[in-house]
């Protein structure tokens, strides 16, 4: 392997050189810089010298604590309840703010909690926004990767036919990919506009006025799904083309043979098309996953992470901290964590889809 790469392969290296140089300069070098910065208190602009801080940035992001809140009791030891009969608890801020008895809770905030008997168990995080960004990013990937890949495959199957004017359909499906994601985001902001936005208007028209207008991007329940839907619409054309290229590499003779054998449409797909698409599927799965983890522009343009952090994602947080808040070390730390996550997931995907 090594000998093949190094010996009498000068032309090959020469051809690769520009790409290798650019990737080293703009991808590999920045990555190592990010890792180095994440161990310091590097600021974007500061007269103060940069100091090595070890893994403090990581513990600031990833710190977790568990705490059990006991209900408030009156003198007789009875649990106090409010007017609705809900158990009353002391405020968490009594424990997390300047309380010498609980140094491990200092500065932490409630991430989520659940009831167990009379007590309430609270999970606290050093950085709740980061935790929410982490969860939202995973949610986004979990929904977008399979739906976008599946949808793209359906479109590819549809346009992989010899019909008159099929190129028009190919162009139409591919068009959103060519438009800048920022422009698409701005347009969809109008579509999702609360009250008399396009989507609300269309739904109201279809239901003869029964539809209650929704604040798509302003509601914690619909904000992230709205961005998912838009992202899938925008990105599906690209993956459709990759599927299409995969479909066209499958030899027509296989289809002819299947037809002669009397296989129906589903059987043809299941035993001819799908196995033929194996490598394409692996590629698409990995590419979509990586692209979905890099979600940024839509969030930046449409919601800035709101409402109530329901659309916070990792890359947006990295940029927000690094540039918005001039905390390069914090932004770098998020980037490194994101890199490790994507690396692990890609390795798992490679392992699961390996040639057996």
């Amino acid at each position: 392997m090594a000998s093949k790469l190094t010996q009498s392969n000068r032309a090959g290296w020469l051809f690769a050189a520009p790409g290798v140089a650019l990737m080293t300069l703009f991808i590999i070098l920045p990555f190592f810089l990010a890792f180095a910065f994440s161990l310091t208190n590097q600021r974007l602009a500061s007269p103060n010298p940069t100091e090595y801080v070890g893994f403090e940035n990581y513990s600031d992001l990833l710190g977790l604590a568990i705490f059990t809140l006991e209900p408030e009791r009156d003198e007789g030891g009875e649990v106090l309840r409010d007017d609705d009969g809900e158990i009353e608890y002391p405020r968490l801020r009594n424990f997390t703010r300047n309380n010498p008895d609980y140094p491990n809770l200092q500065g932490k905030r409630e991430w989520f909690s659940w009831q167990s008997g009379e007590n309430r168990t609270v999970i606290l995080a050093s950085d709740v926004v980061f935790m929410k960004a982490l969860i939202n990013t995973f949610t986004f990937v979990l929904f977008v990767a399979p739906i976008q890949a599946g949808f793209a495959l359906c479109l590819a199957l549809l346009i992989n036919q010899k019909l008159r004017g099929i190129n028009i359909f190919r162009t139409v499906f591919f068009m959103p990919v060519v438009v800048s994601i920022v422009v698409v985001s701005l347009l969809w902001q109008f579509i999702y506009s609360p009250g008399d936005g396009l989507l609300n208007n269309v739904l109201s028209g279809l239901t003869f006025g029964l539809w209650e207008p929704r604040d798509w991007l302003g509601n914690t329940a619909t904000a992230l799904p709205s961005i998912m839907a838009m992202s899938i619409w925008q990105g599906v054309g690209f993956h459709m083309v990759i599927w299409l290229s995969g479909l066209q590499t499958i030899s027509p003779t296989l289809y002819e043979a299947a037809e002669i054998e009397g296989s129906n449409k589903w059987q043809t797909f299941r035993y001819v098309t799908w196995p033929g698409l194996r490598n394409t599927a692996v590629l698409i799965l990995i590419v979509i996953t990586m692209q979905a983890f890099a979600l940024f522009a839509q969030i930046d343009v449409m919601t800035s992470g709101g409402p109530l952090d329901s659309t916070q994602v990792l890359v947006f947080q990295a940029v927000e901290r690094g540039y918005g808040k001039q905390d390069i070390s914090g932004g770098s730390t998020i980037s490194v964590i994101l890199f490790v996550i994507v690396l692990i997931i890609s390795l798992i995907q490679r392992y699961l889809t390996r040639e057996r």
Partner: protein
Amino acid sequence: MKLVKLLGGTAIIALAAGAASAQTELSLWYHGAGSANAEEALVNQLVDDFNASQSDWKVVIETFPQLAYNDAVGAAALANELPDILDVDGPVMPNWAWAGYMQPLGIDEAKFEGYLPGPIGRWDGEVFSVGLWDAAVALTTRKSTLDKYGIRVPSLDAPWSREEFDGALSAIAASGDFEYPLDLGMAWAGEWYPYAFSPLLQSFGGDIIDRSTYQTAEGILNGDAAIEFGEWWQGLFQSGYVPGTSQDAADRETGLVSGKYAMSWNGNWAALPVIEAFGDDALFLPAPDFGNGGVIGAASWQFGISATSENPEGARAFIEYMLDDKWFAAFSDGTGLIPTTASAATMTQNYAPGGPLEVFYGLSEAQALVRPVTPGYIVQAKVFEKALADIANGADVADTLDAAVDEINEDIQANQGYGH
């Protein structure tokens, strides 16, 4: 004869060439590419006039879109390629001065006499930037609207109290005549939040940070006054008095004029269309007094000299050239913003005695308070913006403000106190 002509011609060419090369180039960066009003054209005219007025310096302007401007300056500073003259937003200036992007103006302070406080950018006891205009915010509405619901027209001496203001909102809301009684401009994410809303907090008695030391926000941004402000703020949204964070940006621009909103908390740069639409019926009211006097924000974009300028005296000459009532008045007429001096105000169409925006000059003089003058402001502004958006969307007030305080304090610590 022929020879003389030839010599003369050569001399003229040489002179022309000499004049061109004698002018040393100064670079100027300006943030307002594609601005909607006449500001950009006026800045260009200012540069042309300056270049024609003397033969030592030639200012060359480079224009950026506002959204990319601060990033461009940051990147240029890292690459050591800052221009000679910088355009800087007032509250951001201390950060740039502290980070070493800018140097003191070195202009005699006597020059700034009679200026409004907002346009003078001070940091560490020195003036680093100065503006040709200031901006002010007012409650914009119509006299006929207030009369219809029997609401008193407030004045600078007798602004609305909290009860009166809340009463006005609930009266207008109860009538159902408007989609919302008040438009706060939640669509304008970004600097608008701290600029327009931190004065409301200050009127309650809180602030973004303790201004005596600039080292902590504890007890200031999460004290009783701040929590009271937060509860009130959240109430505005829960009662349906104001549109929330997902407000349509187009509604923000046109909602008052089109009758969607009864009142709008808006800047003087947006005042001219209101006067056009409502004429004498338009009202620009002072901020309500929530207990500690009415407060509005101050300071807009200003000019300063970069730390790495090789020709600071040229940059200084340019800035001194623009500090002239003529230019204050010209910019005010072109943009609707407040001229920096009272004497320039009398020369303008809108701020002269009896002018339609005269009231803003009074507002700026009486109620204006600059945003916290600290290099940490740019972080604090973002933290404050997020806290207000979250509270508006229903987050727990005390917890949200606590979290904001923690983040601000951690940032101050991480920056070793920001040089205060």
